[in-house]
């Protein structure tokens, strides 16, 4: 079995980090479908965006409008980050002490960049899942960075919508199956509105 352990170590050498997707709040909150690739305990989990892209990590920039400390023994922070299209729910717990301390330090309101993992959370079996982002890193940024993010995210969203129309990628087909009532045109509209909010 020692050979096995060594092989895993070797794979780590060519480890590929999951990219951080750019997605507006109005799209991320529509996610209802998540899945795991591989059967390993440490296999990455993804949420499937309605525009047909798997997403293990997100990069968001917006305004931190609110943060709250919660819990007695297991302290964690919740926050709301607002972009031109809606609200992201973020959280950082004691399992991410670094991220939690970064978040604790920031006074709302502030422009923040958040790198984190999106997940679906259900109050109980029957309720609609809520999408929340577990923070890996958070940092105060300037308005320029926020504007650049809106451009970047609009471009990525439009790219996904273009691919969605014609692609036969399994993720796109799956998205059409699990989100039958969502027309990606609404995300084009959202991208336009987000861009229009930036002063020329």
């Amino acid at each position, binding site marked *: 079995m020692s050979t096995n352990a060594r092989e895993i170590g070797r794979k780590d050498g060519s480890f*590929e*980090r999951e990219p951080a997707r750019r997605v507006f709040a109005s799209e991320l909150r529509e996610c209802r479908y998540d899945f795991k690739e591989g059967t390993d305990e440490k296999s990455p989990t993804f949420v499937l965006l309605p525009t047909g892209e798997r997403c293990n990590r997100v*990069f968001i920039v917006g305004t931190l409008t609110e943060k709250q400390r919660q819990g007695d023994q297991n302290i964690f922070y919740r926050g709301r980050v607002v972009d031109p299209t809606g609200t992201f729910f973020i959280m950082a717990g004691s399992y991410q002490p670094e991220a939690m301390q970064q978040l604790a330090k920031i006074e709302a309101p502030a422009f923040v*960049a958040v790198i984190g993992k999106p997940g679906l959370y259900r109050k109980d079996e029957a309720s609609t899942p809520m999408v929340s982002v577990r923070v890996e890193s958070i940092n105060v940024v300037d308005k320029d960075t926020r*504007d650049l993010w809106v451009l970047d995210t*609009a471009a990525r969203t*439009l790219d996904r919508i273009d691919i969605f129309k014609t692609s036969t990628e399994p993720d796109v087909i799956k998205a059409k199956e699990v989100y039958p009532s969502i027309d990606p045109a609404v995300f084009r509209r959202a991208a336009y509105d987000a861009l229009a909010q930036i002063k*020329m």
Partner: protein
Amino acid sequence: MDFSETADRISRKFQKSGQTIDPKKIEGKLRRLIEEFGVQPSEAERSVTNDLAKEFNIPQMGSGGGGGKSGGATEPKKIADMSPEEWVTLEGKVVALSTPASPAIAQSGIIADDSGGIRFVAWAKSNAPAMTVDSWYHIESAVVDEFKGVASLKIHSGTTVKECVTDGALVPSTVPVVNLHPGVGSVRAKVIQEWDTTHERMLQSGILGDETGTIKFVIWKEAGKEKLVVGSVYNIFYAMVDEYNGKLSLNLNTATIMQDDGDILVSGGNVAVRGALVHIAPGSGIIKRCPVEGCNRALSRQNYCPVHEIQPKFIYDLRIKGWLDDGEKTHNILLQRDVVESLTGITLDAAKEIAENNPLGMDEVFLQMREKVLGRYVTCHGREIDNRLLVNTCERLTFESGEHAALLNRAGGAS
């Protein structure tokens, strides 16, 4: 563990000799050797092959049969067509000899014909005549085997070696760097970078590249070996291509090297990545380096160098290690001092000041730098080597109203 691939390979080998063997049967044999007896997989493959060859009376298959010269093994074979576990006869030119790694080996080196080159080992017990570089030999009944994915020709006591006269000049053909594979390879490439040597026996190491990619190279100290000149192009014939941790490198000690007047536009090198800095890794900020000449390693907090131990007279340096993410791919990046200074606005002197006067010390520099760059959009220009982008310049992205207008048009256009 899955043995079907190996079993298929063995089964195919026997199919060539007209024997059909159920892969399930082979798999069973392999499983028994590997799982019950802890035999190394490559050894198990060889032993099962031999075993079956004996069973079906196919002599050229195994390596223990000796003397078996039937089945076309006397026809000279091109080196490029050889595959492992084959008994072969060839005509080739010894293009390099290297120092044998063990007293059991009489000679080792590289032999080549017009199709390519292969490493060879002549066992001391083989009593083969000593071969000399640049001479041609007719070698009968040698065995090709494979170790760590590298094919090598074994000259043993059943092999006959005769010098022969061939007047055809041997002009090796070079391959693009990206097409190199473990074994022996010839390239035309430019020296892009020279590294500090990490071992006293090492003469030189660095990076070679051509239009298709880059590869690490090393030259070990040996009589007659000279350093390559950075920026020059060389024709390198019959270098040894080794693989370690899935990465290839060239050992030039066996190679014939000729300087070339031309120039090469090296690719795989210069890339520009635009994205967000999504992670600043530990070990970024201000660091201490080993002052021993040619070492320059990063020291631990206790000023310990893995080679030169405690170094109280360390040298301060700045660097940032992290991940640059464009939304599709994440690039491992490394910024050196001048790039860090211009990106963060914190100079080495300022960082020293912070490190020495702040209660958090070096951590404070890390935190201040992270605060300035994490989550920011930048464009990095640099060279991508071993999946890491070595950044030459890194600029903050600025808002382009033209881009904004174009996107508004695109989003507002007919859907």
